[in-house]
């Protein structure tokens, strides 16, 4: 019993925040309308997306500016499957091509929605990390990739319906062809379940030796090599995992929205998710979740508030979002959670230092 308490006390503060967030989300539908349950389902899908990027950026130091590619790849698999099965009027192919043939059935489509982002990530990972692409180069290349992906998706209109996008069977876990959509509230809990599972997975990874190696890569990759590690393997691994999780987030998101279009793979989403994580604080999972939650709620509330006041005001809300981001950068550069952890760490360091000094000096000089 005492042991458990001690363990709890030793738990980093941010894990308490995680628990609070998760409980809040669990209870959320009880106090909110269908609309907000729907909005929050989308936000939770984004939270999963942010978690996937936090593994890559926060822990491993690989700032992907094109993470939407994976998100969108997952979403588009479901989209193509739905369009095909529901015979959307624009579908101009008789038969699914061999590489998409799995999309013909529901489980296959779900599998593909995870597999395709995973494979893209694998390919990109191998391509980039066996070369020496690092730091800002990685970021800018991924930025270009999301640009390419956007062009590609619009251009491959035979499968993607070009810039118009695809309507999707919404709020089902697997089904692509029926009208068995779940009510918003029920689907909410499915997304919540996935969020919980992804959170636990990420937590497990981050605390494992693999997670530590990833952090070491972020800190000083050249040095790590001299301990016999092959950093590119680890980077490819986390890239693939992150890609798959992002793909899952994409699936959940399009199921909430009921449609997908090129913006899901594009630069916009990819940069916004960076902002969410940065505001929350990266490299601790909590920040990714909290940042996404707060900013998305703020965005929805603000834009709705402004448009209620007067339509002309609507144009100001992005201005305000910009100012919020700027303030974050200034006041809490490590993000909300990063700052909390920092304060806590400083405090602990201070106490430890005093203890060490007391032990060493036997009370010669105290500050």
């Amino acid at each position: 019993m005492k042991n458990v308490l001690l363990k709890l006390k030793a738990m980093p503060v941010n894990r308490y925040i995680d628990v609070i967030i998760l409980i809040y989300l669990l209870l959320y539908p009880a106090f909110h309308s269908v609309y907000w349950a729907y909005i929050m389902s989308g936000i939770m899908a984004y939270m999963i997306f942010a978690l996937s990027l936090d593994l890559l950026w926060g822990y491993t130091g690989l700032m992907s500016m094109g993470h939407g590619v994976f998100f969108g790849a997952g979403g588009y698999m479901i989209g193509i499957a739905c369009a095909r099965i529901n015979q959307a009027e624009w579908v101009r192919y008789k038969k699914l091509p061999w590489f998409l043939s799995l999309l013909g059935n529901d489980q296959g489509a779900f599998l593909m929605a995870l597999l395709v982002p995973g494979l893209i990530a694998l390919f990109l990972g191998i391509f980039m990390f066996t070369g020496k692409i690092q730091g800002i180069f990685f970021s800018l290349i991924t930025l270009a990739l999301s640009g390419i992906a956007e062009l590609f998706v619009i251009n491959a209109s035979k499968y993607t319906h070009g810039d118009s996008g695809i309507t999707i069977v919404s709020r089902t876990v697997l089904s692509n062809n029926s009208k068995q959509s779940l009510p918003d509230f029920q689907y909410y809990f499915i997304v919540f379940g996935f969020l919980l599972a992804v959170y636990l997975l990420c937590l497990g990874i981050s605390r494992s030796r693999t997670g530590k190696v990833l952090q070491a890569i972020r800190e000083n990759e050249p040095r790590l090599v001299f301990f016999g590690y092959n950093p590119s393997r680890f980077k490819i691994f986390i890239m693939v995992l992150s890609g798959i999780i992002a793909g899952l987030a994409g699936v959940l998101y399009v199921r909430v929205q009921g449609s997908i279009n090129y913006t899901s793979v594009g630069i916009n989403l990819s940069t916004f998710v960076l902002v969410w994580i940065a505001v929350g604080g990266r490299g601790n999972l909590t920040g990714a979740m909290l940042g996404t939650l707060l900013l998305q709620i703020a965005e929805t509330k603000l834009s709705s508030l402004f448009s209620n006041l007067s339509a002309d005001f609507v144009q100001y809300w992005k201005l305000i979002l910009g100012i919020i981001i700027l303030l974050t950068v200034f006041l809490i550069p490590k993000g909300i959670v990063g700052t909390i952890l920092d304060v806590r760490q400083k405090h602990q360091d201070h106490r430890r230092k005093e203890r060490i000094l007391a032990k060493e000096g036997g009370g010669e000089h105290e500050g």
Partner: protein
Amino acid sequence: MSITLILQLMISGLCNSFILLLTSMGLVIILGYMKVVNLVHTEMLMLGAYICYYTYEVLGLPFLVCLLAAYLISFAFGAVIERLIICHLYGKMSETLLATFAISMILKQTALLAFGKSYKKVSYPIHKELHFGGVFIEGYKLALVVLAIAVMAATLLLLHKTTIGMKMRATTQNRAMTECLGIDTRKVDTITFSHGMGLAGLAGAAIAPLSAVTYSLGDSWLTNTFMNVVMGGVTSLFGTLVSSVIIQESIAVISGFSNSVTAQIIVLMLVIIIVRFKPEGLFTAKGRR
């Protein structure tokens, strides 16, 4: 595909290379030297274009004066941003990304509110077309080529042949130490950043006549300018020149054979592949830990 077409494509590709170079140069300074991921860059192009519109079309000043005005106003604007915001963020790349993202969002919104949504048109300051056999060049584009070369030469001279240039290079490499040597690095930083922004504004003004001016003008330059600078090796103006040529010539020629979408996709892939095999960019001296 006729010879003249290929020639024509190559020539217009070459002109566009220099236009891309012109629009990227400010970024070389700010991203390459200062390690600030400056997402304001493309917004600065947009503002430069607006400055051009208001000085050239509304006030009717001579075009060169307008370019100068664009440089100066952008320089001043850069100084303000640097002083207020960027100067606190050196060495923290992802924070610069975030901050400049926020600034660019604010700028774009402000431009929308201040200048309105409608298109503004800047007419061509030079109306001549030059014809060589079947091949033609717009006079204005030729002027842009000259401008790009001049700006590049001036910047190279500034960086490598003047003391302020040396201070700039030193400051961007090791700020604390340079200050310990008695150099006012805050001032140097401000000048460097502002010069980069000034170049962006100048470029924005120079490209204003090529299309209509709107608050979203910067968007279409984002990928190309950043990728260009990356491929060039971030700190190398010469590398950026070469990569501009590679990018624009490829786009021109490939879109000649197929279409523009394919060309754009292929060229971006090509850039990525080049960067993969030349991760430090085309021209960058290797350092030692």
